[in-house]
C-alpha cells in the first residue's frame, strides 16, 4: 500500500494549528520517526504555523517525504503572503521578539530540527522550511 508522499494544510483560523499538529504527527509517525523526534517535529510545526497566524494572518503548510541516498526525511514548508521579515538574521537570534514576548520561535524550531531555511521579502511574503532526517 503506497503511503501519501506529500500534502498540505491551510492555515486560516487558530484551530488550524491543531490540524497542522495532527497531520504532521500522523505523517512523522507513519514515516517511522521515534516518539521523541515526532514530538520535536510536531512542536516545531506548531510554532511555525502559529507564526503564520500571528504575523501574516493566513497561509499554508506543505509537507513532503524526502528520499535521499536511501534515507528518508520529512520536509515542512510554511508559506504565507504576509508582510515579510525585515531582518532575517535578527529574528534568528536567541531572545529577539517583536510581539510582546511571543517571539518567532525560529531559533528554537531550528534546534528541534536538522535544517531550517527562511526566505522572505518585504511586502511579498515568507517561507520557512524545516527538515528532519530519520537516523539510518
Amino acid at each position: 500500500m503506497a503511503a501519501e508522499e506529500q500534502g498540505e494544510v491551510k492555515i486560516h483560523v487558530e484551530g488550524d494549528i491543531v490540524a497542522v499538529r495532527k497531520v504532521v504527527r500522523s505523517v512523522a509517525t507513519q514515516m517511522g520517526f521515534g516518539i521523541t523526534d515526532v514530538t520535536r517535529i510536531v512542536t516545531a510545526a506548531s510554532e511555525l504555523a502559529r507564526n503564520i497566524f500571528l504575523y501574516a494572518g493566513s497561509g499554508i503548510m506543505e509537507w513532503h517525504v524526502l528520499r535521499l541516498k536511501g534515507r528518508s526525511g520529512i520536509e515542512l514548508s510554511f508559506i504565507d503572503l504576509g508582510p515579510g521579515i525585515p531582518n532575517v538574521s535578527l529574528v534568528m537570534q536567541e531572545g529577539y521578539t517583536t510581539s510582546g514576548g511571543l517571539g518567532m520561535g525560529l531559533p528554537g524550531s531550528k534546534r528541534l530540527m536538522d535544517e531550517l531555511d527562511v526566505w522572505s521579502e518585504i511586502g511579498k511574503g515568507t517561507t520557512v522550511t524545516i527538515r528532519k532526517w530519520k537516523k539510518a
Partner: protein
Amino acid sequence: MTLEENITVIKVRNVLMVAMPAEPGDLTVSTMQEQVLRAMEKYEARGLVLDISLVDTVDSFFARTIAETAQMVALLGGLTVISGMRPSVAITVTQLGLTLGNALTALNVDRALDLLMDIAERS
C-alpha cells in the same frame, strides 16, 4: 472545524485539579486559565494540580499560559504543580528554551497532591 473542549476544575480538599485533554488547541488552553482563576476565587484553594499526561505537544503558547497561570495562582496565594509531563515533551520544552515559570512538577497526580499537602503542612 475543530471542537474545543470544556475544562472542568474540581476541588479536592483545598486543592484544585484540572486534567488537560489530548491535543488542546489555543482556545482550550485559554479556557483552562480562565476556569482556574474563577475556581481560585471561588474556593480560596491553596494550590493547583494541572495534569498534562494526555498532552503530546507543549508549544510556546501552552508553556507561556502555564507559566502565566502559575504566576496568577501564586498572586492568589497558591502553588501550582504540573503533573504527568511526558519525557518527550520535557525534552522538547527544554530544547525550545521554554520555562514553566514558578510551577513545580511531579511525575503523577498522586505525587503532585502529596507535594502540595507536604508544603501546606510545613507552612
